[in-house]
């Protein structure tokens, strides 16, 4: 979508160059695409409608972000908005008394049993004494599945194939865990439909007996429009404390994250990213936000903004140069700016017409580091007034920067030459920016 938006707006860019704000037409055009992207990502259509409406109010007449086009500004602002809805990373609740029971609930086949194993592994690696327990008396070989996973990570597994009452099993296992000194007990439950009243009542009953610290709703990240409906019923009936999204290793966009967060307000705690027991991560909103919006490359936007900020600084510096106020402090800043852009060769190669000529040029980044170290070892007074740097000061600077007096002399000489050059530039009025750095 990002490509689409930027493409679409590149035509408008010229017109918008002077515009400093997002006008209504631009916003509406952009929101049409965003709506599509959200729907294709399986965000619930009602959530989408509301979200788009809210966004319109927030975007129209907003100032453009410096360095970004109108289209890019819209994308960045929407991205921020989605991030906000998705919420922060939220850790697991600590148990007040042991065992702290974590109940996993959800529809059939979403990944509860697998996630029980993953969660156990994670908590174990953090040093807790963990156990898992199965109350799934319905799915064929459900208990065997859980205990096989537990065994593979050397975690205790409570199961009883002969008991057919899930509530009794839950109570029994919590007692056992208490006796065994377990700090976290992960309770797996059978998958069930939200409209199955009898089985939903069973969950409510289990919850009331085991007083869990967490009731985590395990949802398939690929779930469609009905995701909200299902999660809402689960939340109303059972009361959820968090959500785990599974199967995010595929190419599903995971719009459910946005729907669930927006409507339930329950935090998303973890994501499953594979079938293997270690394929499990805490939830961080930025990745999902990018996925939902189909932004391959939000990073490049952020970099562009960064560059724009640097451009401001560069302009400011240019002014100082023109007035021949250029100090060693400025030189250091300039070096910093350039180094922040990445490996110098790459940057030089990106300049049209320069790249091919530079094939054999090797820029010595070490030299930059040296210059920086030398300037860093000067006092502020010395940086402003390099003429006060005498022999003993030079010795101190060389020692401080791990260089030699020869090196210090060289920097000072280059600086003097630059300054001379700048004075000349000022007279001739040519060349705006002092990009002829010493190399």
């Amino acid at each position, binding site marked *: 979508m990002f490509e689409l938006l930027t493409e679409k707006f590149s035509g408008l860019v010229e017109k918008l160059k002077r515009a400093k704000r997002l006008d209504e037409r631009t916003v509406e055009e952009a929101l049409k695409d965003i709506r599509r992207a959200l729907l294709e990502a399986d965000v619930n259509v009602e959530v989408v409608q509301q979200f788009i409406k809210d966004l319109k109010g927030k975007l129209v007449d907003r100032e453009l972000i410096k360095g970004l086009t109108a289209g890019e500004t819209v994308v960045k602002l929407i991205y921020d908005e989605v991030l906000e809805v998705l919420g922060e990373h939220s850790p697991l609740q600590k148990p007040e008394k042991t065992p702290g029971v974590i109940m996993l609930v959800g529809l059939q086949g979403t990944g509860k049993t697998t996630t029980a*194993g993953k969660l156990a592994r994670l908590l174990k690696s953090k040093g807790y004494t963990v156990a898992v327990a199965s109350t799934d008396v319905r799915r064929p070989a459900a208990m065997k599945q859980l205990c096989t996973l537990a065994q593979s990570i050397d975690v205790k597994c409570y199961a009883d194939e002969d008991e057919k009452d899930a509530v009794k099993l839950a109570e029994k296992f919590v007692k056992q865990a208490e006796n065994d000194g377990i700090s976290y007990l992960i309770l797996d439950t059978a998958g069930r439909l939200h409209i199955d009243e009898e089985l939903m009542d069973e969950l409510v009953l289990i919850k009331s007996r085991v007083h869990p610290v967490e009731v985590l709703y395990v949802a398939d990240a690929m*779930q469609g429009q009905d995701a909200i409906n299902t999660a809402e019923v689960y939340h109303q009936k059972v009361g959820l404390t968090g959500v785990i999204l599974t199967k995010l290793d595929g190419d599903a966009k995971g719009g459910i994250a946005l729907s669930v967060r927006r409507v339930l307000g329950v935090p998303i705690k973890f994501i499953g990213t594979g079938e293997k027991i270690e394929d499990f991560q805490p939830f961080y909103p930025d990745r999902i936000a990018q996925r939902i919006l189909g932004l391959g490359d939000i990073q490049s936007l952020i970099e562009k903004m960064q560059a724009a900020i640097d451009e401001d600084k560069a302009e400011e510096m240019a002014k100082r140069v023109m007035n021949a106020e250029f100090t060693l402090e400025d030189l250091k800043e300039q070096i910093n700016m350039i180094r922040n852009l990445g490996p110098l060769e790459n940057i030089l190669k990106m300049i049209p017409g320069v790249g091919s000529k530079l094939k054999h040029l090797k820029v010595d980044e070490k030299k930059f580091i040296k210059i920086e170290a030398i300037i860093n070892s000067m006092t502020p007074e010395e940086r402003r007034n390099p003429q006060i740097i005498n022999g003993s000061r030079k010795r101190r600077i060389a020692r401080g920067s791990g260089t030699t007096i020869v090196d210090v002399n060289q920097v000072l000489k280059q600086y003097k030459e630059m300054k001379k050059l700048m004075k000349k530039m000022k007279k001739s009025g040519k060349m705006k920016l002092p990009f002829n750095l010493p190399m």
Partner: protein
Amino acid sequence: MLKAIYEHLKKGLQKTKEQAKIGLSELNISRKIDDSLFEDLEIALLKADVGINATEEIIEFLKKEAKKKGLKNGEELKGLLKEKLISMLKGCSGELRLLNEKPDVILFLGINGSGKTTTVGKLAYRFKKEGKSVVLAAADTFRAAAIEQLEVWAERTEARIVKHKPGADPAAVVFDAVNSAKSRGDDIVLVDTAGRLHTKEHLMKELQKIKRTIKKFSENQPCETLLVLDGTIGQNSINQAKVFKESTDVSGIIITKLDGTAKGGALIPICRELKIPIKFVGVGEGIEDLQPFDPEAFVSALLD
């Protein structure tokens, strides 16, 4: 701060709820045909997972037809919509294709947790009821207790199971299953494979290897390669169907979990784009909860 966020969310929730129009049944369709009616229809279709592209196409069609035929009332439009949806599913229904080769081999595939193993159990039961001898091949050697799960289904349906140890080569299991079925003259081999995401190339290659193994016994087999789709899944189903079809030449679809409140509307774009016949619908976890796909019943439920 936290309170403010909570209030904000609660407000969002109320707003969403006010807006909620669940399906066509709760939509007052007996009204003047205007833009707002088309908007409501669009939302109803989107909510059924039909997806934005197919939905837009349908709405365009309805607008044009309504104008052409001079329709006035929404009720007339509803009839038209139903017809359109059914016509979009034309050519996408069909019965199982059996060749009576002793054995006929049916391969099941799909993403994780979609309902493959359960569907194998349900179909084994169907065949047994028809008096056929059935072999289950436990070719999911990867997932914990996958073999044991299929064993339970074998017991329930009194089918024979061929299995190896966990971690074994799935193609080797399939070879043994088909080979033994052939020498004993069994009618049907149902191959349960491990769930896999269509994005994982090496796992798709594994399926191709299984297929090649089956072909060693007969060029006509597997007589069906059935993709099991989870009916609660949204637009990703389209990609799943596309990729599975490309790499394993899927011959039919089974859509599961339509006993919930999800509508499975992604079948509309899947059919439109890929023309894969839909053979069965899963409507529960029980052994009999499998129905032949009926486009009219499906569309009625979708618009309900």
